[in-house]
């Protein structure tokens, strides 16, 4: 968050005087571009579902199939972000604390899910975890099915969300003051105790940020999920897929209702995360 560091303009005037030229035209261009590319399209999303009134929107959103999809998308996103919070912290810890062969390669690899197109990740994950894949194959005789089940959805969301936690936590671990930890050593704290009561509180805000980013990405994730999900209505059908299905049925208002519900629920969730962060800041964690 750079947002927090941006100074507010003084009261009274809406902008601080500057001798730098070009403020008006540039701001005008930025606002025009944002309006055309973001605000007007969003206005359509907000306005469109209400064609058949509140009952139409509520009727769509409370259809069992829609409710199941929303529950699945949000539930799986929370679960994946929670798993990633633990494993991402471990990966970030290992990458910053230990010197081992291949560390730089592993570090560079963390970013890959950011750059890999989701459709490519999707078919690759479906293959690896499918019945003939490197992981799915050996598991199949044991009766464990990952691809084409809800477990597959979780696997995909964990894979795309991992970098968000690692890259949020890593700078904090890297900049951690060595003397604080040495003080804990002098006071007799063992390694495990130091990690839990000295380092963990310091990285907690970054963990929350990473959780929020991973969650936001996972809720709306489409490409990496649909190939591995199985897409059974009511069981393994995610909300973004349901939007696509409704569009293919020419139910634009229905699709917009689901889209609007997703947007509202995500904002609610992210607002809750922000409140947690505020509470943490008040309690004196960084």
């Amino acid at each position, binding site marked *: 968050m*750079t*947002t927090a560091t*941006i100074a*507010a303009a003084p009261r009274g005037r809406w902008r*601080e005087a*500057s*001798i*730098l*030229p*070009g*403020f008006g035209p540039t701001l005008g*261009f*930025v606002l025009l*571009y*944002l309006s055309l*590319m973001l605000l007007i*399209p*969003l206005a*359509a*999303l907000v306005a469109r579902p209400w064609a058949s009134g509140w009952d139409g929107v509520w009727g769509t959103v409370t259809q069992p199939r829609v409710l199941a999809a929303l529950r699945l998308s949000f539930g799986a996103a929370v679960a994946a972000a929670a798993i990633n919070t633990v*494993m991402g912290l471990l*990966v970030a810890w290992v*990458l910053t604390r*230990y*010197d081992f062969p291949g560390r730089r390669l*592993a*570090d*560079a*690899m963390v970013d*890959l899910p*950011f750059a890999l*197109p989701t459709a*490519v990740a999707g*078919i690759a994950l479906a*293959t*690896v975890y499918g019945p003939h894949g490197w992981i799915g194959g050996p598991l199949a005789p044991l009766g464990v099915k990952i691809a084409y089940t809800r477990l597959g959805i979780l696997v995909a969301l964990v*894979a795309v969300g991992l970098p*968000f936690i690692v890259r*949020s936590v*890593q*700078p904090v671990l*890297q900049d*951690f*003051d*060595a*003397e604080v930890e040495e003080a804990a050593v002098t006071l007799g704290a063992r390694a495990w105790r130091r990690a839990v009561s000295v380092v963990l509180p310091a990285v907690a805000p970054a963990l929350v940020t990473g959780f929020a980013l991973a969650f936001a*990405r996972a*809720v*709306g994730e*489409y*490409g990496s999920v649909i190939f591995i999900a199985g897409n059974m209505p009511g069981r393994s059908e995610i909300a973004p*897929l349901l*939007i*696509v299905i409704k*569009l293919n049925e020419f139910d*634009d208002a229905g*699709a*917009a209702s689901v*889209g609007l519900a997703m*947007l509202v629920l995500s904002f609610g969730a992210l607002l809750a995360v922000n409140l947690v962060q505020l509470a943490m800041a008040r309690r004196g964690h960084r």
Partner: protein
Amino acid sequence: MRRVAPQRPSASAWILIAVALAWLGLAIGLPLATVFTEAFRRGAPAVLAAITDPDALAAIRLTLIVAAIAVPLNAIFGLAAAWVVTKFDFRGKSLLVSLIDLPFSMSPVVSGLVWVLLFGAEGWFGPLLEPLGISIIFSTSGIVLATILVTLPFVARELIPLMQSQGTDEELAAATLGAGGFSTFFRVTLPNIAWALLTGVLLCNARAMGEFGAVSVVSGHIRGLTNTMPLHVELLYNNYDFVGAFSVASLLAGLAVVTLVLKTVMERRFTGAAESDGRTLTRFR
């Protein structure tokens, strides 16, 4: 302040390292490797045949065209937005920054859906444009619009933190010495942010070429006409042409790997080798 230096791992630390590396392998390494092994399952000629198939070539061409329109537009927007946000003080600035970030927290499917709601047959403007013979949905323009929306924040996100930390001193000095707006921008600001701009363009391009969800909603999937590379991958995969799907996918995976390598190299350039290691913030999303 002194930082904790990476240590030689103790015996128990090796367990942690093994678990972390296994996790990275499961989530990232194996899927990446499988793209290439599946593509080359029947040898290089099959890969070449899949890539030079007319429909695949049409998809590659469309992907390049879409990126060639969307990326420069978002680069210009990113420059303008970063300039306004970091060089001037005005009310509503944090609202503006939040708006620029908004597409990051929208589902790609929703980023496509909004254009259908505007320009589809039942949309706000669709019926007005139809008599004029203009169709946006199921055509290149729709794909471009969806791609622009998804990749809107990339360049701005890359530039804002850097320009924030650089402040306005150099620009103010140039203005005091009588430089106009454009020469201040091109001769003072731009050289200071060239590497960050390039990184932003690179990331924006990777996402633009790889975007699937948003494009899928507006494209109509007309083979050889409105299929981009990711959509072509989906089509081949769903037709059980796995070698073909993974061949085209390996091009996209190659693009992702090259993007990451270039990004790492450029970040070393503009943050200094010692600093950049592991300090890459969440630049993509």
